[in-house]
């Protein structure tokens, strides 16, 4: 049974639809990450689940209980949900201990039990010995841990995380996201985590929802979204890609590959679009690591000739920009060295070359 069920959720601010008929569910113990750029409605969605915001229409159920619908509104404190805020929202006038103990104090838990639970929570996030400090005297990473501990101590069945890592510097963020995932799994909570950072999403998520303009663009595992993006937006948002427009010249039967003719006149074999339609105008999504550069023309299909226009040495690999004719640039990752201006051959693995429907999504959006 899903722990969180969001059905037909909409939120209108003035004449803007911040959330547009959104439905999804989260299974027990699952970490769902909602990813999207700012203003896509992910924060509003989270706040609606928390009860800090009310949807304009739609229903949300938590553990089978309707918490908001047309006729029901359960206030946040009665939803049994824990939340970690983007700003951490630690109370500056309370010590670390008092911050963490707060939810237990509210519940009327006996003092001894509170002391034990807080000690456990503090140990869990590795802050033992700091119970008497005030939040302002802690580093960003430590504040983050206190916020997590404050949430963890209540052992919430549902945990909401509002960009909890966005205020940390890059190194710490990477470390914290692994810890965060372990912690959520340890608590056996069902979690909804929102972020604008796709790598954070991929690292933490069991499942990702990619949102834009209040709608779901695609829902699935990190692998799905990366390897089988539903459209150009998702392909661009999750990972790096070059996009080349083309026309299907030889359609498959939906499961087989299609042959796509691009502007340079070359023809490439590619996977058909996700909706199975394998005809007409498509956009090819080329991930840089699927493009292999050589000086000699390799055997086989899907080989383009081009000129290296630019290169960026990044240590473990070099990123090249290759002009494949007609001003079309594709990116490639290679460990070999090529000088700028040299002629190269680019072989693209047809299994990993994805065709995306062109224009169809945007057109459909406009009609709606």
């Amino acid at each position: 049974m899903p722990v969180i069920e969001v059905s037909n959720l909409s939120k209108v601010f003035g004449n803007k639809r911040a959330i547009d008929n959104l439905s999804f569910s989260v299974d027990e113990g699952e970490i769902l990450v909602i990813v999207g750029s700012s203003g896509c409605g992910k924060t509003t969605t989270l706040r609606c689940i928390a009860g800090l915001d009310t949807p304009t229409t739609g229903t949300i159920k938590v553990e089978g209980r309707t918490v908001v619908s047309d006729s029901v509104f359960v206030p946040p404190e009665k939803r049994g949900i824990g939340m970690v805020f983007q700003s951490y929202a630690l109370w500056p006038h309370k010590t670390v201990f008092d911050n963490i103990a707060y939810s237990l104090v509210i519940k009327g838990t006996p003092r001894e039990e509170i002391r034990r639970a807080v000690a456990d929570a503090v140990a869990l996030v590795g802050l033992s010995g700091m119970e008497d400090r005030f939040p302002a005297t802690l580093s960003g990473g430590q504040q983050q841990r206190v916020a997590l501990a404050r949430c963890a101590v209540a052992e919430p069945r549902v945990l909401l995380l509002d960009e909890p890592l966005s205020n940390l510097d890059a190194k710490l963020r990477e470390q914290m996201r692994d810890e965060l995932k372990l912690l959520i799994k340890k608590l056996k909570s069902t979690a909804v985590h929102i972020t604008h950072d796709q790598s954070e999403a991929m690292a933490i998520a069991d499942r990702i929802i990619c949102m834009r303009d209040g709608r779901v663009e695609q829902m699935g595992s990190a692998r799905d979204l990366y390897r089988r993006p539903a459209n150009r937006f998702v392909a661009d948002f999750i990972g790096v890609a070059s996009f080349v427009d083309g026309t299907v010249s030889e359609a498959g039967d939906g499961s087989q590959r299609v042959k796509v003719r691009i502007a340079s006149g070359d023809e490439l074999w590619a996977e058909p679009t996700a909706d199975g339609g394998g005809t007409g105008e498509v956009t090819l999504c080329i991930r840089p690591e699927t493009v292999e550069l050589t000086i000699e023309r390799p055997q086989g299909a899907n080989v383009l000739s081009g000129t290296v226009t630019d290169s960026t040495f990044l240590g473990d690999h070099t990123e090249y920009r290759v002009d494949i004719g007609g001003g079309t640039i594709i990116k490639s990752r290679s460990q070999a060295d090529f000088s700028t201006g040299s002629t190269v051959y680019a072989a693209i693995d047809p299994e990993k070359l994805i065709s995306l429907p062109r224009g169809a999504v945007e057109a459909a959006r406009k009609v709606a």
Partner: protein
Amino acid sequence: MTEIIAAEPAASARGRKPPLFDAESTLAAVVFIFTGILILAPIGYLIYGSFLSNSPGAPDAVATVSNWVRVYTSPIYLEAFFNTATLSCTVAILSMIVGGIMAWIVARTNAPGRDRLSLLVILPLMISNLITTLAWVALAAPNAGFINSAFRALFGIQTVFDIYSFPGIVLVLATDHAAFAFIAFYAALRSIDGALEEASYMLGAGPVRTGLRMTLPLIWPTIASTFLLIFVMTAENFSVPTILGANVGYQTLPTRIYFDMTVEPSEPTMAATAGTMLLWIALVGTFWQRRVLRRAGQYVTISGKGSRPRQTDLGPWRFAATGFLVLYVLVGVVLPYLALVFSSFMSFLTPRITPRLFTLDNYAYLLRSESLDAIIHSLSYSLGGGLLITALYIVLSYLIKRAGSGSARVMEYLAMIPSAIPAIVLAVGILWFFVGLPVPIYGTAAILVIAYFIRFVGLGVRQSRTALSQISEELPEAARMCGASPLRAFYDVTVPLVQPAALALWTLLFMSIFTEISVTILLYNFNTITLPVQLWNDMSAGHQTRAFATAMLQASVIFIVIFVANRKFGILRNTLGR
């Protein structure tokens, strides 16, 4: 199955933030409308009354324009208008020169002891100029004033300086407002990026040229807006010109309004019309001041960031600079108050000082029951009333913050209006508004507290808005996610976080109300008399030394509050922005 638990109707909450409690929007509407009426009705009554032949509500009151014709053509009112304008102009210029020099010394030179002295320099801001005026009377009254008797005894000069004169009024107001100018210029001079001036030096400009070409234009908005503010503050000042101008028949508009309201045969509607005259001055001044400040937005260099401003090494002159600060503190605070202490122990003011003259009667007078009543009234209005008003301002600001837009924006603008209205003019409007109401509120403590609420609403909302804006919405929200009810979250999180700012605001209101005279003088009656009013009445009746003792009592309380507040939350340092 669990739907029965705590299910609340959600329909009313749709499309906006969930309310803190169900009645929040209702409460906001009620509070906004009430406050709006309290702010607008007095002004409406004032203008309405200026077109009547007698006070609004009087049976023989008929509509007329004769007040307007009389006030705007009669030499008495035009002279008062002219006096108000010239006095305000003189005071503004002088106080800016003195305040500007002091600001430069503290912010930009190496004068020894400047940081400590700067805390004393702002003291006049905290003490009401009513009390300071009395102190000056003690110091420089003709014949009997301390200075004059000293000079007569030593050199046989009759009167060196007569405080009851135009120069006397200017002296008191200019020393008082110099502290204000000091703060404004100090902030501006301190926040100019030193790199800008260094750049000017690098390009070959000398200090004088840099000062004139770089620094002066950069602080020009501060100069203009400070001038206008001091101008308006002086124009609406009631107590200083009324006390010190009485002997020479010098009247400004607030004085004129006071006499029209209180001296038989009273002409309240003429007072209201004269009030409109004063209102023009205040409105034009405030309008220009806002405009200047808006334009000043272009001067992004005054941002409070950047490198340290340059300091001028004054060489041996640095002691002269310190001397200037010391002189100001001596003249502005120390000397007048020493004279006040001294004279408050005398039976009456006289040039011939003999041991027999000294008495404790003036202080004993404070212990008779009428005086004790005044003390109790003053303390309860400023402590209790001040606390209530603080709470109301914070609730008002909180609702403005929660409402976010629309009505909140309107409310914020409304709250700024009373600070632009001269206090005594406001008092006339409040008087008529409440006399006109069917509730018997006139002559009670309530009308005074409400009047104080209206008078200081701009200050209060501005201060509590700043305090509230520093508290993120997420803090109480986090408490609710931990299981706290809205009220519990408010009590556990919002209240303790607002508390320091509330305490500071309460202190400020305490000091303002404890010495308030301009509004109180028209709204008090026998049952609600306050210390400043008693002091005023003693002064008018010629019992000067008795008034001195009352002033001493007030000054002592204020000084103690400043001392404690400075210890507790650095009220002086905060005023200087350090």
